[in-house]
């Protein structure tokens, strides 16, 4: 089934339109703006839902003559991601309406959240890599605004800036990778294109070209950095716990369900293109490392949201690791867990929000026995937390089984060190069980005396997590149904070939079942001595604190902050000569460096025939310029400058340029006139010449002169050379298409009329600036 262009475009554009009108809606509807957002999100959900099962590319032509179009690529993977984004979006908007009701700057909040949803849908569907990059960075920008929602809070601003630096900065790596892919596509597909759909259609040719040109590993590394930072993979995970400064609905939506999964999504997208031994080594290792580090840090966490943040990083690691493995199980684990995790983790975040809202604290140690006061929430948590821990028969169990299967297969095939994969996966999963149970623990047991009173959450707060929990239960009850509906198609899109996915409750003992059994057994045993485990892990984390990336981030930022004013003071010190020195020295250095490193440049010694007359004129011109430099007074200098100008005019005549000569002669007259008019009003200041300064300036000038000399020698065309194609074109086309025999004039008014128009504006602006300069003084506005 081919996708419907109108529906896809509407789904992507609608949130942006809604974002534009959100401030207006907020003025009219106040807190109900949340429900407005929910309606928009539901509409998108419905629109995307109709595309379930379609596959293919659609394009909205923009500049057809240059083949620029807004291209969208729809397949199972894109639809799954878009459904999650819009579906959870709808629930988060509903939740926000109640949760955020006493907050400030809500117009901005809802507008950004809507724009964010549009960006996510854009990332999901964009087929053009440049558009992917654009939406990718837009999600980071929205995340920046949302994390910094409490603009008056220092920590909020710090966290927002950190997320911005890490995710937007790493987005530049995405751009590098995109450009490398486009270059490879130039060879592989015949034309330099940014069309991802075309690249995915011919992965073999792309891969061969990438390998041949040696761009495979650089491109892979660039994408890995971009995706790793976005999806909080070690060692770029540190921004995610800080991002918990955002309001809880934002954490649930951006920092667990969607934005952080953009990296995972893109890893899945590129899997058919880059899949191979390097791919597995990179992503399986990074993913499993993140899974372990995240899970261990989650055990140490003291804040409920911090626990969930590290846990999110850990689960993102699981998905990345899944996609890292080449077998079909890996891709199944990645896709299925993306769905499962979005459901249970968003639910848990919303639960954390309810707890913070109704109890007033988020400290793990201070909370327990909340099941009496929050029975529905407790039930939701039970489902979600057990799913997160990977307990059968919940859906988290199935996707984790698939990962275990993938690690086991990889180890079985490769042997040796590869057996670390399953071992690490089990090790990390033990900690997952531990912190999942700990989170559930805040609802179990007796309520401590310190927690005085617990409010009843409003319906709008409870329904969204309950819906997510019901989704979890539904998938748990019939995993094969979910697989058939959405997961199967996502797996097909992220792997080569057309694999069949089967998920069922294990009925016989297999390696993954044993691994799950070990995980759950050790996890339950460990929970009994939770405090001791936690102390041990905390001690380990302290011992390794020197390696904490947060520390390095702070140092780097402080260094940059200290260095930039120093650089500014050197380069930008308010003295004209400093600016000139830096600019001309840098320009010369760059040009000379370019000449030095470019091969095949030969000086054209006999390239130009200069007659004696021309030589004489040019010599006089240089002499006049020297006279300008050593002129004892302003008037002498201006006259010498005029001589230079007139000599250049004669040079134009000799160089067969009558138009230029005429113009130059007249303009020189005007320049002389205007100089004399102005100089009349200015004092005779000439500045004293100090030998050291003169020597320095002369040296710099000599370098510039030498650069210009070299440039002319190296780039002047040979005497006998044919005119360039473009000159030839203008000469032959002047009469037939321009209708004039003066080629220069035809170029000015016809062929390059747009340029001339631009130049007219420049001249007009110069005149207006002069008028403004004088007029401002007349009105008394100085400085």
């Amino acid at each position, binding site marked *: 089934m081919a996708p419907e262009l109108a529906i896809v475009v509407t789904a992507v554009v609608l949130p942006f339109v809604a974002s534009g009108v959100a401030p207006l809606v907020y003025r009219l509807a106040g807190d109900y703006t949340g429900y407005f957002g929910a309606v928009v999100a539901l509409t998108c959900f419905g629109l995307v839902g109709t595309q379930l099962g379609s596959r293919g590319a659609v394009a909205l032509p923009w500049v057809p003559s240059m083949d620029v179009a807004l291209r969208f690529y729809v397949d199972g993977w894109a639809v799954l991601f878009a459904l999650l984004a819009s579906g959870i979006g709808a629930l988060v908007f509903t939740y926000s309406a109640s949760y955020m009701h006493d907050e400030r700057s809500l117009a901005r909040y809802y507008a950004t959240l809507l724009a964010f949803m549009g960006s996510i849908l854009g990332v999901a569907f964009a087929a053009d890599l440049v558009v992917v990059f654009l939406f990718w960075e837009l999600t980071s920008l929205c995340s920046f605004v949302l994390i910094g929602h409490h603009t008056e809070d220092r920590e909020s601003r710090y966290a927002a800036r950190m997320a911005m630096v890490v995710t937007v900065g790493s987005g530049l790596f995405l751009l590098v990778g995109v450009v490398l892919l486009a270059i490879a596509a130039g060879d592989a597909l015949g034309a330099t294109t940014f069309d991802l759909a075309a690249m995915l259609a011919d992965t073999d040719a792309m891969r061969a070209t990438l390998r041949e040109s040696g761009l495979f590993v650089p491109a892979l590394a660039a994408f890995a950095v971009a995706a790793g930072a976005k999806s909080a993979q070690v060692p770029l995970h540190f921004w995610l716990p800080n991002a918990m400064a955002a309001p809880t609905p934002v954490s649930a939506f951006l920092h667990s369900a969607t934005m952080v999964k953009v990296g995972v999504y893109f890893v899945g997208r590129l899997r058919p293109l880059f899949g191979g031994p390097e791919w597995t080594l990179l992503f399986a290792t990074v993913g499993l490392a993140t899974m372990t580090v995240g899970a261990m840090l989650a055990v140490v966490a003291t804040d409920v949201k911090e626990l969930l943040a590290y846990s999110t990083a850990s689960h993102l690691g699981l998905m990345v690791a899944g996609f890292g493995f080449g077998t079909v199980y890996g891709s199944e684990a990645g896709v299925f867990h993306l769905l499962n995790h979005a459901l249970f983790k968003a639910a848990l975040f919303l639960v954390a929000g309810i707890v913070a809202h109704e109890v007033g604290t988020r400290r793990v140690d201070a909370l327990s026995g909340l099941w009496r006061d929050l029975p529905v929430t407790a039930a939701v948590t039970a489902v979600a937390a057990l799913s997160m821990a990977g307990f059968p028969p919940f859906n988290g169990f199935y996707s984790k089984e698939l990962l275990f299967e993938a690690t086991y297969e990889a180890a079985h095939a490769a042997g040796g060190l590869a057996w670390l994969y399953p071992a690490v996966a089990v090790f990390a999963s033990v900690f997952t069980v531990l912190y999942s149970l700990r989170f559930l623990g805040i609802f179990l047991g007796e309520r401590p005396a310190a927690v005085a009173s617990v409010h009843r959450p409003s319906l709008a707060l409870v329904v969204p997590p309950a819906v997510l929990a019901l989704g979890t239960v539904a998938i748990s009850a019939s995993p094969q149904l979910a697989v058939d509906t959405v997961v199967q198609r996502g797996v097909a899109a992220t792997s080569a070939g057309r694999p069949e996915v089967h998920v069922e409750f294990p009925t016989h003992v297999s390696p993954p079942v044993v691994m799950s059994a070990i995980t759950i057994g050790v996890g339950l045993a460990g929970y009994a001595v939770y405090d001791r485990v936690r102390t041990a892990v905390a001690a380990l984390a302290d011992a390794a604190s020197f390696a904490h990336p947060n520390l390095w981030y702070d140092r780097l930022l402080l260094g940059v902050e200290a260095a930039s004013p120093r650089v500014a003071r050197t380069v930008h010190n308010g003295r004209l000569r400093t600016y000139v020195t830096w600019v001309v020295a840098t320009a010369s250095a760059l040009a000379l460096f370019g000449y030095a490193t470019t091969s095949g440049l030969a000086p054209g010694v006999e390239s130009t025939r200069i007659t004696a007359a021309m030589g004489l004129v040019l010599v006089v011109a240089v002499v006049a310029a020297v006279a300008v430099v050593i002129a004892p007074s302003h008037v002498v200098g201006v006259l010498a400058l005029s001589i230079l100008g007139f000599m250049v005019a004669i*040079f134009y005549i000799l160089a067969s340029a009558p138009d230029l000569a005429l113009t130059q002669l007249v303009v020189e007259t005007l320049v002389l006139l205007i100089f004399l008019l102005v100089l009349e009003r200015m004092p005779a200041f000439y500045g004293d010449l100090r030998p050291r300064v003169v020597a320095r*300036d002369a040296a710099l000038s000599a370098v510039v002169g030498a650069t210009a000399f070299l440039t002319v020698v190296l780039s002047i065309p040979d005497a006998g050379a044919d005119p360039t194609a473009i000159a030839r074109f203008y000469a032959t086309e002047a009469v037939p298409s321009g209708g004039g025999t003066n080629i220069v004039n035809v170029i000015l008014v016809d062929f390059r009329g747009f340029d001339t128009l631009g130049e007219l504006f420049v001249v007009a602006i110069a005149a207006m600036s002069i008028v403004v300069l004088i007029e401002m003084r007349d009105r008394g506005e100085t400085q």
Partner: protein
Amino acid sequence: MSVALATVVGGLFALGTFLLLRRDLVRVVWGVSVLSQAANVYLISMGGVQPGTHDTVPVLDAHGGAVPETTDPLVQALVLTAIVISFGTTAFALVLTYRAYQENETMDVQEWR
């Protein structure tokens, strides 16, 4: 002989830069002026300088007929606009100089802060 042309262009660039570094603001403006002349000469030389004959002028004889090999008309078009624009900017720079003198009561760029 391109060395001769290159020497002229290089010399003009060097002299213009030297003027730009002076403390007298009027000289700085002169420097801009000299540099733009140098740039124009450079552009023209990129079109291939040949001794002028009737044929090399980029003005054709009549409508129709063979098109002789002229000098590059494109660089001439570029320079033509450059001349007019550099007049505009020179005039602007001069007025700016004049106003700066009125505000600061000095022509010495070193004394501005």
